[in-house]
């Protein structure tokens, strides 16, 4: 459905001339550096997949999304979205996709949200019954009743984002790209958006690519994770597998009844220890969490227990800072 083969994108970054001579010279020839935003990326996405496209700032996420939308032309490699080469047939591709850029709004600033919906209807030639059904449905799921007839300039960020998400899906696109759709939103708005994405995916088998810095988005929405950094692909695969392989660290805090707790398990390391309370750390590749708890349960009478597993967030932090090495 989405095929990305050896795609790279380079930007020419022009250096600002200083001094008179250089300014004159720059009118004819300007020095530039090549900035590689995306390098040799490959992936295939099947219909209905929910893909988290993750990486630190400047990793090349938005550049990839723009190439998939036909806005940017790749410097090398080929892209096909439903068989169409996006940059060659931008308009045709546009009909198949819905795009949300978290920092940008595609709504008429001065007009009620509903007017932007109507323009969208005509732009995409959406059949009336489908348009009506979708407006009704989306208004309900995204809780837009209270503001759909209000001018956009009066809306909160979260309300605007919900409307932008709705508008991107009005024409039932088989594919949607969401570039940081939850950036700057509160918990309620985030929850509504996640719920909506999952719901649409379930109902219409919509293929979703989402970029975000909020790992809760990824954990709640995605099955598959694609990780890029500095334009390069680092991981592409199942989200649970990723967690198991690179995470798997856990920290358990156990409080027992007896006054001397004396751990002897070779696979667990002690973080903190008091008379009847102990904090231990393990990794599920060596000893599963269940076995670790079971070990203490067999030897002591546990009165309280706290468990912390490593989140994608913490795994990614470790990857970005280099304390976890990725295996290619």
């Amino acid at each position: 459905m989405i095929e990305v083969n050896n795609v790279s994108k380079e930007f020419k970054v022009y250096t600002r001339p200083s001094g008179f001579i250089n300014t004159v010279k720059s009118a004819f020839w300007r020095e530039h550096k090549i900035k590689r935003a995306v390098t040799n990326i490959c992936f295939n996405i099947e219909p209905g997949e929910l893909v988290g496209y993750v990486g630190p700032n400047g990793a090349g996420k938005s550049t990839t999304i723009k190439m998939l939308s036909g806005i940017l032309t790749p410097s090398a490699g080929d892209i096909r979205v439903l068989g169409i080469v996006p940059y060659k047939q931008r308009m045709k591709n546009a009909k198949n996709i819905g795009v949300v850029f978290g920092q940008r709004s595609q709504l008429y600033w001065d007009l009620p949200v509903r007017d932007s919906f109507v323009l969208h209807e005509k732009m995409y030639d959406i059949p009336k019954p489908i348009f009506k059904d979708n407006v009704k449905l989306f208004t309900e799921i995204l809780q837009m009743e209270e503001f759909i007839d209000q001018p956009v300039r009066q809306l909160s960020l979260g309300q605007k984002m919900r409307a932008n998400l709705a508008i991107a899906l009005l024409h039932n696109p088989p594919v949607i790209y969401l570039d940081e759709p939850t950036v700057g939103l509160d918990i309620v708005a985030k929850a509504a958006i996640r719920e909506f994405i999952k719901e649409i995916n379930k109902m219409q088998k919509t293929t979703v690519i989402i970029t975000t810095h909020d790992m809760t988005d990824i954990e709640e929405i995605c099955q598959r994770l694609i990780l890029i950094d500095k334009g390069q692909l680092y991981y592409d695969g199942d989200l649970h597998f990723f967690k198991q392989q690179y995470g798997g660290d856990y920290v358990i805090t156990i409080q027992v009844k007896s006054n001397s707790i004396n751990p002897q398990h070779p696979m667990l390391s002690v973080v903190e220890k008091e008379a009847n309370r102990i904090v231990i750390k393990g990794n599920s590749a060596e000893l599963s969490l269940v076995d670790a708890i079971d070990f203490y349960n067999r030897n002591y009478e546990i009165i309280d227990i706290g468990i912390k597993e490593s989140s994608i967030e913490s795994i990614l932090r470790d990857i970005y800072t280099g304390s976890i090495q990725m295996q290619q």
Partner: protein
Amino acid sequence: MKMKAQYYFTAIRLGLKSKTIYRASAWIGSVTGIFGLLIQVAIWYALLGAGARFDTTFQTMLTFSILMQLSNAFVATFSGDAISRLIRNGDIAIYMARPIKLKQHLFLGDFGRNLFAVFLVNLPVCIILILFYGFTIPPDWRTIAISIIMLINGMIILFHYRYILGLVSFWLIQNPFTSWGFQNVESIFSGRVLPIWLYPVWLADLTQYLPFRYFFYEPIALFVGKSTLGNSMNSLLIQCIWLVIFVALEKIASHFALRKLIVQGG
């Protein structure tokens, strides 16, 4: 085809609607725009009164001024500013991700916004003027038809001209139209205020080599009988050449503008 028409119509309608939101400022803007016309009419009335001078009657000048005012009102806003802003802040990405042509889309919105001033301010004032002082109507329908075709042509050329200036402003940081006095150049060479048939010969000759008189002066001169049908066919041809030149220039400028700073950030 039908769906395209619906999209055009909706884009124009919403442009118009967005203008009516800030009704007060829209009114003030359009009303100050019409003062120019009233002043012009007053001057011509004082100069020509009931008689004719320089081969020109008051009614000819009134018709000329009214048509000039209305034609300009249709294209009063500048998409050029919008396009360079969109490229600069990267919002152009939103438009490029939709199945629309950006230039066309901006034109439709602008056209809708201009309709507010055309229908709510300019047209009523013009009708009152016509009721009081009359209006010159060409004797045959061919002249009327050709003038209208040329007026529409002129609007398209003018739109492209300003669109290009907007794109250029993307490199120059300023829009030459508003900040470099291009506006004055345009009003001198376009015969917008003073008809070119009243210009000294050398200046009138000079205007023939520039695009500006082919915006609205030529069709209106034909309409008020200051140009013959034969002459106007010639002007129509030159208009078409300018149209081709401007469309080509716009394509080139758009291409480079988009290539250079394409869709920054976010």
